[in-house]
């Protein structure tokens, strides 16, 4: 049996751990480190973002990066 056949075969299921979907893996919230980080996240900003459409979130990102691009050189100049 070559590699490709093995990957498709029932024999793999016998040796591999049960299949986990992305949702399962993503929801593996048992990570205590991530839980600690969660306490410091400002979810009021997230809630605000979740009320926007994807298009509006994209525009928000564009606006934020343009703001940075415009003012970063001024800040750098001021520090010289």
């Amino acid at each position: 049996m070559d590699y490709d056949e093995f990957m498709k075969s029932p024999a793999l299921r016998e040796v591999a751990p049960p299949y986990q979907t992305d949702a399962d893996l993503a929801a593996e919230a048992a990570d205590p480190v991530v839980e600690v980080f969660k306490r410091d996240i400002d979810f009021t900003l997230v809630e605000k973002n979740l009320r926007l459409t994807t298009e509006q979130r994209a525009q928000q990102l564009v606006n934020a990066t343009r703001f940075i691009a415009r003012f970063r050189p001024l800040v750098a100049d001021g520090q010289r």
Partner: protein
Amino acid sequence: MVTDFEQAMRVLTGDGIEFIVIGGVAGALHGSAFITQDLDVVYSRERENIRRLATALQSHQPYLRGAPEGLPFRWDEATIRNGLNFTLTTSLGDLDLLGEVAGGGNYSDLSPHSQEVGGFGVRFRLVNLEKLIVLKRAAGRPKDLAVIAELQGILERRKQREG
């Protein structure tokens, strides 16, 4: 240099390149409040797609980010074919073109975990939130811990809303 996301997305989608947006931009589009400065995409390694990618970015001065100046780097089909993941600086800003990504595999592997969305004035494929968390976890970078925590929170809120 800060990436011009609108222009970069227009260049990539304008030439019909097959790619999926991942990374910080994907996070922002899913509702993250973290601001990112580069654009990360997983691109298809199909021959025609590589040709399109080479052509599309040719006029935007792609160069290896962080590499010493003056290297004989050429952005063409052969370079893309011989490489896999490229972290580039371009006149559009910083662009990471990934043939494969930890936790997500290649374009074909990732495609079922993405959806078409509208943003930046164009339509493109965006990795779904669940997979984005998987990718961030797989990257295993300490700097991503806060991002993972936030994305996890977004996922929980989304599930609550969906009942």
